[in-house]
């Protein structure tokens, strides 16, 4: 019981670094508050928007499979028809952006994240949700808005002021899960090679080299995403950079990605990949990473998403269910650092069925429905009450090389997980540019030069 409370406390304390940079006098947004007058009745009626139909864009993710079976129930309960479109991450975001920028409102509800929403909300494409949440005529009794982990919920708030104001201002999306990053490993492979699970990045390289000697055939020591895409520098490598004291903007607000520590971290990261990943790993996305690990071909997934655990542990999707362990994300010279990713659902401001769209949004993010998705593998819960659930606790308890291993790692990770980038509409572009410099260094080895050139470009992107 005590450990469970530690976990809840850790998740409740989830930090937004961006909000720490907030200046005192954040601009008060004078937005009108849509959703407050959507329906005049006092009490909630699930069938208030019966007969309407909504289109939802989802990004391919373990969450989606947990949601699908629940949709018919929602349709029956509300009389609203739901059309799901599921696309992979890059295509999905491309299509979403094309739709949002055209203002055609094809998608009423979409899966998104703070990072994407900084771009969309600044352009006026996202509906602020505070008015909807506060309207009892359209929000079910027992929705319990205060049950969301405050840091996670507030990651959906932003004042629209570049580089500041994260965690304040209007609510642009509701969270459905959050992930941080750990070291997932295969106990049998480590044992066979006589290698200890590494605790620092230096040790990761040593372990990789030792594992490379003991693994044969199509098996490799390390898998991690390594695409020229913002998720590398925001999340996985971003976490490693944090452990070297490197963040996109340093304490003085300068672009800090070309410092001596940044060069050191980048060189080590590239060395690890070169020593332990197969050819073609320079194009690995999170999907290849997840598939690679579940196929049993890799000894460790470095800095990969902890919410892959339900997939690893699922015997019908993975061959490693009996042979997988979780360890803390490795340590660097400046301690441990872990990025945080929060999947959210938002409403398009050009939706023509906002009532039906909100009915879906509040249904999906209500305690019971979210709980059902969690039990089916949608990790990690964003409502504090979910962590008190016996069934979920019992399920999570079995994950790892020893009982409670996943939970312990998550509780420790949640204490350090944070969004360590400042909000900005063009942040994805800046992070892409950084990722490009790292990938370029993988091919040509000119780490310092590439990082300096990226830093100069990022400077002009952000200001």
């Amino acid at each position, binding site marked *: 019981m005590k450990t469970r409370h530690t976990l809840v406390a850790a998740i409740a304390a989830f930090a937004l670094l961006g909000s720490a940079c907030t200046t005192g006098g954040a601009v008060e947004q004078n937005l009108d508050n849509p959703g407050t007058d959507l329906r005049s009745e006092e009490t909630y009626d699930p069938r208030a928007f019966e007969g309407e139909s909504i289109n939802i864009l989802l990004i391919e993710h373990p969450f989606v499979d947990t949601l699908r079976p629940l949709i018919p129930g929602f349709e029956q309960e509300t009389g609203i028809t739901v059309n799901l479109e599921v696309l992979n991450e*890059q295509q999905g975001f*491309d299509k979403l*952006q*094309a739709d949002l*920028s055209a203002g055609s409102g094809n998608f009423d509800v979409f899966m998104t994240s703070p990072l994407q929403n900084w*771009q969309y909300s*600044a*352009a*006026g*494409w996202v509906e602020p949700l505070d008015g909807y949440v506060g309207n009892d005529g359209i929000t079910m009794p027992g929705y319990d808005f205060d049950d969301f982990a405050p840091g996670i919920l507030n990651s959906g708030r932003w004042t629209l002021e570049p580089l500041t104001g994260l965690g304040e201002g209007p609510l642009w999306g509701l969270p459905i899960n959050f992930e941080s990053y750990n070291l997932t490993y295969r106990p049998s492979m480590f044992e066979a090679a006589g290698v200890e699970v590494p605790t620092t990045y230096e040790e990761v390289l040593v372990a990789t080299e030792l594992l490379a000697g003991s693994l044969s055939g*199509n098996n490799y020591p390390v898998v991690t995403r390594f*695409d*020229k895409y913002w998720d590398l520098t925001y999340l996985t490598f971003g976490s490693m950079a944090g452990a070297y004291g490197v963040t996109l903007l340093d304490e003085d607000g300068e672009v800090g990605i070309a410092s001596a520590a940044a060069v050191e971290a980048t060189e080590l990261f590239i060395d690890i990949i070169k020593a332990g990943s*197969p*050819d*073609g790993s*320079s*194009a690995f996305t999170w999907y290849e990473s997840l598939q690679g690990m579940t196929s049993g071909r890799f000894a460790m997934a470095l800095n990969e998403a902890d919410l892959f655990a339900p997939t690893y542990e699922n015997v019908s999707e993975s061959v490693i269910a009996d042979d997988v362990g979780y360890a803390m994300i490795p340590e660097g010279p400046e301690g441990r650092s872990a990025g945080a990713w929060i999947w959210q659902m938002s409403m398009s401001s050009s939706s023509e069925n906002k009532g039906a769209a909100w009915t879906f949004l509040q249904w999906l993010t209500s305690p019971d429905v979210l709980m059902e998705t969690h039990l089916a593998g949608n990790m990690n819960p964003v409502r504090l009450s979910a962590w008190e659930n016996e069934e979920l606790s019992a399920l999570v308890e079995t994950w790892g090389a020893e009982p409670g291993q996943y939970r312990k790692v998550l509780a420790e990770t949640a204490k350090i997980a944070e969004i360590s980038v400042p909000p900005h*509409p*063009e942040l*994805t*572009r800046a992070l892409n540019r950084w990722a*490009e410099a790292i*990938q*370029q260094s993988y*091919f040509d080895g000119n780490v310092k030069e590439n990082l300096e*050139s990226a830093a100069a*470009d990022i400077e002009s992107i952000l200001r």
Partner: protein
Amino acid sequence: MLIARQVDSPRHSTSHRRQKRSFVFMLLPALLLIVGIMFFFLQGIARSFTNEKSYIRNPTFVGFDNYVALFSDSTFLVGLGATMLYVLLVLMLQIPLALSIALLLDKTSFMRRIGRNLIVLPLLIPPIVAGLMWKTMMQPSAGVLNFILSSIGLPGGSWLTDPATSLLSVVLIDTWAFTSFSTLIILAGLQSLPKSLREAATVDGAGWWQTFRHISLPLLMPYVVLVALFRVADSLKQFDLIWPVTRGGPLNSTRLLHVQGYEEAFRFSSPAMAMAIIFVLWIIIYLASFLLLRLWRRTVNAVD
């Protein structure tokens, strides 16, 4: 000429009137077309001189800032170079290949019947599908290409995953997809050549190579230049083959200008920058087409 027409005109007054009428009928669609295209074209150019971005609510004119930024941006310059290299590789590979296949198909009526049907097959596959198909085959560890290479004792390639080979790999896919188009045009040219000239040359004792070099090739030049014109314009704006296959990567190795324009518009919500890139690309295509058309006219005159 002018006098002749003036003298002629009274006699052809009905046809003249009909001509006038049809001119009026054609005016409307032509105007619609010109206005429809020119309006958006000019609007696009105008936008390229603003700082328009999705989150900038009131864009202002910034003069040539976007163009200055482009030509000092390493990504754009690399993309410009990659675009030129792409076109060059396409021409160097596809024209000799199309010419050889056309000559082969022209040789016998049997080859022509079978071959002409087979050769159009890649044309029936949408570029996106062709791209994804080849992407799977070029996969370094699980793709069939490296499997075949290794089974005959050759080392496999990194294909699309290595910036050193990715552009060439895409050009190979392009070659697979579009060489048949070039072949068909050249084959049509070959078949329209007067047989008598070649027969006369053979009778005079010229070998196959001499006949080809001095008779067929000069007569074929208009067709070859026409193929070059199509391929240059198409490759300069190549997008639907590249985007599904590499999305411009790895690194910037296949980030041709059209890909960059797309990314600016639909990924980074910067229509102004996108328009600037597309306008630069348009100028390049226009110049290339203009020069090739002049060359084409010269080859046609030479044949005449």
